[in-house]
């Protein structure tokens, strides 16, 4: 982890309100794992005051140039400021931070994405393909326009779901997951789930995984101040009774953002 200067190579509105940001980074930034994040200064101005944590959509190294990509939606002050940063703008970031996805050998990875939560899973899918490991990618969004990155998903089996039925299954990606589990010949010993998306979806995926004893890692999202474990501003509530609980709150920035979804008390997360 380091504080490094970066500059905007591209900051493009992919679909209304959703942006793909490419940042050129120096070699001092070590190679990130899928699911790790960066704490980004979204503007050279004093406002917004705090950095914003973003999962990486990808890490690229071509011709000696290193870059990271962030896929984000304009949801508040920070992302609005970020969307206004032009090509060439110099910013800085702290990273790579946190714990990423940890696929186990010889298990079939099932990736479950909801909306912009697809970002770290695209990174994971690319990595799995590099290692020639087949995977299942289940991706749900409100409509066809929000199915960002589907053409990039190669080396795996892709199933889509939309709330409006414009593409793929008309309904929730959770149903796709239930079907996959019932018909895909998986068992808790042969498959595992990696998920990211709205916390409501992650909660449902976690319940399904817990009911059936499936290993399930989810990437969480939340406000952070320091992002290095010092301020204790990003507590993750754990379910009562799980051994990891012990009357404490793990810091999302340090023990996450990817965590065992079945131990998280989703109802107490904002």
């Amino acid at each position: 982890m380091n504080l490094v200067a970066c500059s905007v190579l591209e900051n493009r509105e992919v679909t209304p309100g959703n942006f793909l940001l490419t940042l050129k980074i120096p070699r001092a930034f070590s190679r990130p794992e899928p699911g790790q994040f960066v704490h980004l200064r979204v503007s050279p101005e004093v406002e917004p005051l705090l950095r914003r944590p973003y999962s990486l959509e990808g890490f690229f190294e071509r011709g000696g140039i290193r870059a990271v990509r962030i896929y984000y939606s304009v949801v508040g002050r920070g992302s609005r400021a970020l969307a206004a940063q032009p090509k060439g703008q110099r910013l800085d970031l702290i990273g790579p931070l946190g714990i990423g996805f940890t696929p186990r050998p010889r298990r079939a990875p099932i990736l479950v994405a909801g909306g912009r939560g697809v970002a770290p899973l695209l990174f994971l899918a690319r990595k799995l393909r590099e290692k020639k490991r087949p995977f299942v990618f289940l991706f749900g969004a409100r409509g066809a326009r929000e199915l960002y990155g589907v053409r990039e998903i190669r080396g795996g089996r892709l199933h889509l779901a939309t709330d409006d039925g414009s593409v793929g299954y008309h309904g929730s990606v959770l149903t796709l997951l239930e079907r996959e589990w019932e018909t895909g010949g998986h068992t808790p010993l042969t498959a595992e789930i990696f998920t990211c998306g709205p916390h409501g979806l992650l909660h449902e995926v976690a319940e399904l995984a817990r009911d059936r004893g499936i290993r399930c890692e989810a990437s969480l999202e939340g406000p952070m101040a320091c992002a290095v474990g010092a301020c204790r501003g990003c507590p993750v509530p754990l379910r009562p009774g799980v051994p990891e609980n012990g009357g404490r709150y793990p810091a999302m920035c340090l023990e996450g953002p990817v965590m065992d979804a079945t131990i998280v008390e989703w109802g107490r997360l904002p």
Partner: protein
Amino acid sequence: MTPASAPSLEVRIGSLALRNPVLVASGIIGYGNEYERLVDLSAIGGIVTKTVTRHARAGNPPPRVVETASGMLNSIGIENPGLEGFLEVKVPILRRLPCAVIVSVEGEDVREFCELVEGVSGSGVAHAIEVNISCPNVGPHGLRYSTDADMAREVMTAIRPLTTLPLLAKLTPNVTRIAEIAAACESCGADAVSLVNTFVGMAIDSVSRKPILGTVVGGLSGPAIKPLALAKVWEVVQAVDIPVVGMGGITMPRDALEFILAGSTAVQVGTALFANPTLAEACVEEIDAYLRRAELTSVVDLIGALEVPPERGQIRAGRSVPSSGRRESGGAS
């Protein structure tokens, strides 16, 4: 051009000599190691640790932080490993830090304050102790000791004989007359007062009709509070003779100078360090550059050097303030 000899940045808080007056505030930098790769601790005066309480605390339910206009509202709730955990896990980490270590402690009652001061003092790792009698986020007793001069006196009187380390009383700004509390701490042997802790604040989500923080209210910090903090520092500087450690909203290196001009012997950098981890080092550089420009040999010459025209210093909030005459003005000579 011949460079002038480097100005001295050293300041003293009781028996503690700091190589420069820039500290990182409690609750910002943990116990130092979390920020080791981001902050050059050898370049700053020291750090104040995350507050240690008698027993371990899990902290408050989420959400604990929210950004507000030019500020941050928090309700961390002093998540910490407690005195035993501190001695076992944190002391070895603190021992190898290349800067002064000021350990922040907070008890639920006078007895706990005593046990903490004895424990921390006995660890040998602390260069000073900051007595946090002002956290807004720790339940029914929060704020109690620093909103009431008698209670502040009770704590300070009890702990003073227990250690020879400098004691800094950390004060809350959530009082009508902060100078009275500061004077009470001084009279009971405090070596310095640190101010300000956060201002009690609240953020509301009008869509969900819910408070944003898990604890409804929390403490406000960041640039939004700097003018409020400066005014409190200014008020306290008039009332006590012990050093004042000033803080509240330092965001730009120049802000540190403002606190020193207002009478702070040292300053603490807080929330803005989250955005800019090199801020504390930048404050040191700014003070050094300022002294060189002003051709001053020591930062001590800058402490309280605010030039207040006599007719302007006498009126505050519509009423006359008796001139204390305790501190000489650094005005036109």
